[in-house]
């Protein structure tokens, strides 16, 4: 029933397409241009675009670089423009207007991709070299080859200034992207995601509490469908996205069809995931009472497994000059490294382009995804009954295996028995999502282009949790069943109008105006039952509870932009975006976000060229200033709401104790950035450098209200924070020969967010962080705060009597005393970097090695705290006390000293290693393929770190904004290897 409208839509659409395709072309005096496009070594460049400049007449090159372009009605002057990704474009004026013409081209490497056309910062195709603010792009192949099913996780290490973390190793598990660090405290810090012009949701709804971590919805995208990704990191570049752009914007472009023969890409891979690090367990032969222990168990053996992964995708593309299509489908499976967890995702995408008239083009993007993840609780910020959580919470001299006769598992010591959880508990999540976009590009005359775009993102996220009757959780003997659903509907509509004024000497002017309408509705329902009916697996029990909540908002935006360029020397951009949102208070409805940018190419100045000589081939300096915003959290937070208040069996309402605020406005960032792009040594070395300074004001925080008013708090634009940093990208073509080439790319970024103002109540703890994560003026957002060791003047740790607890030989002989609470660390990394080396041998063998590093970060190793807590004592450290190497009571005292558990979380990971062999021509011919390759790849193969937990990269807080660096039973990120075959027909 549900699919009927789509089916109907496609039937009509296809019928329409066929009619137009069959329409015979009229034959006139025509020009045929053909030739071959190659790189500096003479290798043919496939997929290069060949275009008559200023028109839409064009084609792309074949596998060997050859092309043939037919110009039906040549209107001189004709200029042939040839572009290929990673190469500088070239223009060839054509003198002939009829007959066959040959035009070959040898393109030169563009080391920093400055001539790439991008759209996200200015909403009109602009060369990167013209932008005042940095914009990063990542090629789709780099995402598909990363060997991780989540698109955002695949960006790790590929963009300077983007810190990408997989927060959990759970299959399908969530990732965080922080562009230039934090810009908010109470809001999501994830960037705004746009796919082919459609604003898509990237929520991390924790509908069922599984301990902290959740998946995020950008994981629904198939990496194989991606053509390229554009990333704008801050307000200076993202001001046109107005009140949703404080965390930057990530725009994803999916593959589109190209005129020519049908192309088929088949890609299949199989692999395995396993655990990189095991924690050493207590093997003491006595217990705390001094009695012998019969056996100690290491339940990591029962909890972890080696999981199989597979991915198969098929992409078909083709079309003629008027109609092109891309059809992609894939199936991804992943078994978790925690037993009984897995993930299955099926994607299908159809992208169509149709030239309706010479001046009018219609494009559609449609994608459907369905996924199912079988999850298990882990972590323990709220729910502490998870698997790894109870590996920590059960003393390892307890036999947790099921009774061989009755099959009954022993009760958990505190919260549950992890083996029973694995055997009987279930927590599936099912996603069903449709995204569709439709775009009309009209060019009534060449200088004017009008784009209209409408996009829909519609999904259902169904999460449930089932704990059977008689479970091993002492407090859930009656069982617990929860079923929660989130229905999300997002819609956006854009109009972009661009006018290119006639040139005036060397001056060029481009004006743009546009509008943007967004509507979002999230409807969530939850049903919960306890004391379950016997032998029933749904929500039925003697205690039942149901609830629903709806969040709906609308945003109307409008922008105007003026670009001004003088030759290739100078480009200036000024723009302003206005936003009105239903979530802003009535008194602050209309908000304005201006931006300015300038780009100056010094190498266009003759004096500089003479000075720089051959060392500097190109030097561009750029700068920008921009403002952007972040929406208030709840759509209805501005209102003084009246909430349900029962009196006995009667139903009433009273004012919510959170007072409304009709003065609520968006959080507001102001960012300046300056930088340069330099090409050195004949284009063999490129450097990009950016310095940014960001200040965010109007941070929305709860502010206490005089309680005698009958309210207790109000959301108010009261906080502020500052952040600044540097970003460097260095790329070098070390060796460029036909037989061997080697290139290196280094990214490095720093940032340093500091809260400068909070509400009048002063410092506060973040909920669900065990009162250890805190926000205070003058400190990093979400720093660790807690008890310290008591020390003497010499800095030695002392006991309650003031004597050092270590003797002269370094043996611990005393019990540490608890010192005052203090700032213990900062979980926001101060710097992060990556080094990628790529080698090719004889064009057939390619090796890519990427190392990622994070530095200047502190982590809270809560796992270790529980492991050495005497009540459980699963960790190897606790054996020291049992076997008398430290005094009795040492660990009982130490567990109250949080300083002990804040560790340096810096790490280096061997993030990606991939060896690809492009099969020789003879073999490819036997396969009847155009080309074929085989890849062996590894991801996260090794971690170098001083952190003593499972994984320094995971975070029990999941995608939460300021609960970072919290290590409490988070599923570690697996070590993955995969073997894949890629065939092109």
């Amino acid at each position, binding site marked *: 029933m549900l699919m009927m409208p789509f089916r109907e839509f496609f039937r009509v659409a296809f019928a329409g397409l066929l009619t137009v395709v069959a329409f015979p072309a009229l034959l006139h005096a025509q020009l045929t241009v053909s030739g071959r496009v190659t790189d500096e070594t003479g290798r043919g460049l496939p997929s290069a675009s060949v275009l008559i400049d200023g028109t839409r007449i064009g084609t792309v090159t074949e596998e060997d670089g050859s092309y043939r372009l037919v110009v039906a009605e040549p209107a001189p002057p004709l200029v042939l423009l040839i572009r290929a990704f990673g190469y500088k474009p070239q223009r060839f004026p054509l003198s002939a207007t009829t007959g066959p013409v040959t035009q070959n081209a040898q393109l030169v490497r563009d080391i920093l991709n400055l001539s790439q056309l991008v759209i996200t910062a200015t909403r009109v195709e602009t060369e990167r070299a013209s932008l005042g603010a940095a914009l990063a792009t990542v090629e789709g192949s780099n995402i598909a080859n990363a060997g991780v099913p989540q698109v955002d996780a695949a960006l790790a290490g590929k963009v300077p200034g983007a810190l990408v973390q997989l927060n959990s190793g759970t299959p399908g598990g969530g990732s965080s992207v922080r562009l230039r660090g934090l810009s908010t405290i109470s809001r999501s810090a994830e960037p705004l995601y746009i796919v082919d012009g459609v604003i898509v949701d990237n929520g991390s709804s924790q509908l069922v509490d599984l301990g902290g971590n959740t998946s995020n919805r950008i994981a629904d995208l198939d990496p194989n469908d991606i053509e390229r990704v554009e990333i704008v990191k801050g307000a200076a570049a993202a001001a046109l996205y107005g009140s949703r752009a404080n965390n930057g914007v990530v725009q994803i472009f999916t593959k589109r069809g190209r005129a020519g023969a049908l192309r088929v890409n088949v890609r299949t891979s199989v692999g395995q995931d396993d655990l990189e690090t095991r924690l050493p367990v207590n093997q003491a032969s006595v217990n705390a009472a001094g009695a012998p222990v019969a056996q100690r168990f290491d339940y990591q053996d029962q909890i972890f497994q080696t999981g199989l992964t597979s991915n198969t995708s098929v992409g078909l593309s083709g079309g003629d000059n008027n109609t092109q299509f891309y059809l992609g489908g894939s199936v991804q499976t992943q078994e978790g490294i925690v037993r009984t967890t897995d993930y299955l995702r099926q994607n299908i995408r159809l992208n169509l382009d149709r030239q309706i008239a010479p001046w009018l083009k219609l494009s559609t993007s449609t994608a459907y995804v369905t996924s199912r993840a079988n999850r298990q609780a882990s972590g323990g910020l709220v729910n502490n009954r998870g698997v790894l959580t109870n590996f920590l919470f059960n003393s390892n001299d307890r036999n947790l295996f099921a009774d061989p006769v009755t099959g009954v598992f022993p009760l958990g010591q505190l919260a549950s028995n992890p083996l029973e959880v694995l055997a009987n508990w279930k927590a599936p999540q099912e996603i069903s999502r449709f995204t569709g976009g439709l775009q009309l590009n009209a060019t009534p005359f060449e200088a004017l282009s009008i784009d*209209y775009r*409408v996009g829909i993102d519609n999904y259902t996220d169904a999460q449930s949790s089932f704990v059977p009757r008689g479970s091993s959780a002492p407090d859930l003997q009656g069982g617990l069943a929860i079923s929660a659903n989130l229905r999300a509907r997002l*819609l956006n*509509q854009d*109009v972009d109008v661009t006018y290119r004024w006639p040139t005036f000497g060397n001056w060029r002017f481009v004006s743009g105006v546009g*509008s*943007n*309408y967004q*509507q979002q509705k999230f409807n969530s329902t939850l049903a919960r039952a306890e004391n379950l009916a016997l032998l029933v697996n749904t929500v039925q029990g003697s205690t039942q509870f149901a609830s629903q*909540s*709806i969040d*709906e*908002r*609308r945003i*109307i*935006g*409008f922008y105007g932009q003026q670009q001004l360029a003088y030759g290739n020397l100078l480009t200036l951009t000024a723009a302003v975006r*206005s936003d*009105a*949102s*239903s979530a802003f208070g*009535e008194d602050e*409805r*209309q908000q304005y976000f201006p931006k300015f940018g300038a780009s100056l190419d010094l190498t266009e100045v003759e004096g500089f060229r003479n000075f720089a000589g051959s060392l500097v081939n190109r030097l561009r300096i750029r700068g920008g200033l921009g403002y952007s915003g972040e929406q208030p959290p709840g*759509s*209805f937070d501005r*209102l*003084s*709401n*009246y*909430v*349900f*208040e*029962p*009196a*006995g*069996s*009667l*139903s*009433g*309402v*009273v*004012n*919510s*104790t959170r007072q*409304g605020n009709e003065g609520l406005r968006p959080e507001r960032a102001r960012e300046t950035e300056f930088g340069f792009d330099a090409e050195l040594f004949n284009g063999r070395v490129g450097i990009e450098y950016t310095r940014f300074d960001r200040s965010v004001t109007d941070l929305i925080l709860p502010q*206490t*209200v*005089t*309680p*005698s*008013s*009958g*309210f*207790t708090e109000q959301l108010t634009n009261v906080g502020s924070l500052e952040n600044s940093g540097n970003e460097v990208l260095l790329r070098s073509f070390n060796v460029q020969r036909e037989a061997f080439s080697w290139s290196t790319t280094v990214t490095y970024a720093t940032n340093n967010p500091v809260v400068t103002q909070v509400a*009048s*109540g002063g410092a506060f703890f973040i909920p669900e962080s065990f009162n250890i994560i805190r926000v205070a003026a003058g400190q990093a957002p979400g720093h660790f705060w807690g008890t310290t060791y008591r020390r003497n003047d010499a800095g030695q740790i002392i006991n309650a009597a003031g004597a050092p607890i270590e003797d002269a030989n370094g043996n611990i002989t005393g019990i540490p005393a608890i010192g005052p609470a203090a700032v213990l660390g900062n979980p926001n990394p101060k710097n992060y970097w990556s080094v990628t080396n790529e080698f090719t041998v004889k064009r057939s063998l390619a090796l890519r090695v990427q190392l990622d590093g994070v530095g200047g970060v502190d982590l809270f190793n809560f796992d270790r705290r529980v492991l050495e807590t005497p009540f459980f004592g699963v960790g190897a450290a606790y054996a020291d006390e049992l076997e008398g190497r430290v005094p009795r009571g040492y660990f009982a005292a130490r567990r109250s000293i949080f300083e002990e558990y804040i560790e340096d979380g810096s790490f280096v990971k061997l993030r990606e290693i991939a060896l690809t062999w492009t099969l020789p021509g003879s073999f490819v011919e036997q396969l009847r393929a155009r080309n074929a390759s085989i890849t062996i790849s590894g991801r996260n193969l090794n971690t170098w770190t001083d952190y003593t937990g499972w994984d320094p990269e995971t975070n029990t807080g999941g995608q939460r904004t300021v609960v970072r660096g919290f290590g409490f039973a988070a599923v570690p990120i697996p070590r993955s290897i995969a073997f894949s075959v890629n065939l092109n027909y």
Partner: protein
Amino acid sequence: MTTTFARPARRSALAMGMMCVASGALLAGCNLDIANPNAATEVNVLTTPAGVRALAVGLQGRWGNARGDAVWIPGLVANELGVTNGSLAPQRAFQNFPDAGALTPLEDVNVDVLNFWSRHYQIVRTADELLASIEGVTLAPGTASGIRALAFTMKAYAFGTLAEAWQQIPVDITGLQSTFVDRATALNTALDLLSQARQTLDATPASSEFNSQLLTPGVDLPNLVRAWQARYALNAGRNDQALAFANDVPAGATSEYRYATADQSPLWSVFTGLRYFAAQASLRTEAEAGDTRVARLFGPTPQPSFGGSSIVPVLIFATQTEAYPMFTQDELTLIRAEALARLNRLGEARTSVNAVRVAAGLDARSEAQLATQAAVLTEVARQRRYSLFASGLAWADLRRFGNASQARVNWLPYPLNERSGNPNTPPNP
């Protein structure tokens, strides 16, 4: 295509309209004032009969919720209750431990000081909203008078309760910076409000719609008003008035708040669910043999508590839905006894206090045993400890019977949040 502006933003309606057209919002309206489906808004509640009715119910719900703090805080301060363990940091600050080393400072940042204060001002706010909005909506006269009387009564209760815990309190909360009045003025305000409630009901008795649909079952509003008049008149030292008010309540009249599954008793939560509090064991050990109230109120086994006190479990508040008395005949009888004694009508006073003793299974005290005013008052105070156990009145009792110095503190500190927003807040005692 409809472009409706249900409530155009004041300044930018035109700009918004132009943008709506420009954005081509074909698929949905451009109205930026989306109604909140999860909660009612001010306009819904304060200007409609249904909203005012629901608010009248909500007011009683707030009273039911505030009962937790209003019982255990005075109970701890006046040595009626004890905390069950030392880890209850904010709670244990209210208790006067025999072991002085266990005392923790009772400070203005204490979250329960704030909660006690806030919850009662939330009652005041809702009552004020009802009184302000009832003029503008059409209700049956008896329903309107019932709601008005309820609002006066609940507001009086809030001031009467706050006035026994803080030295000065605001009684007019129209702004964010209310001025403070002393205890006597606060109690007079409470008594004025109660007499307004009484006049309202006398002029127009509450309708059956009010009594059956809006008033929680178990509440006898006209007699609740009289009983609370007696209670606060006694606290205000107006003994003749207290006696008259108590006599206005017919024998057998009573009121209780009946909790329900959806509206669980906060007393069940702190006494039984969380087991935060128990009774001081002295209540049991010092009880007279044969007192039937003791076995109903207290468990037999004393347990050592934190800080040197000994406590016994509380047996009432055993279920989530157990009703809570708003006034009892015992309270009225003891009000009469106390007022008579203070008026030096000792014979009548003795009769009243003996009525309570006999009802509790004890023998009547002789004239010789209760020969002086002081002896009668001591006996009244003693009976109040048992008959009015966990009523939240123990602290006021210490003050009336001249034992204020036995309390943990003379007055609670003003919540820090009040001070940070309201410059009129007096210095802490």
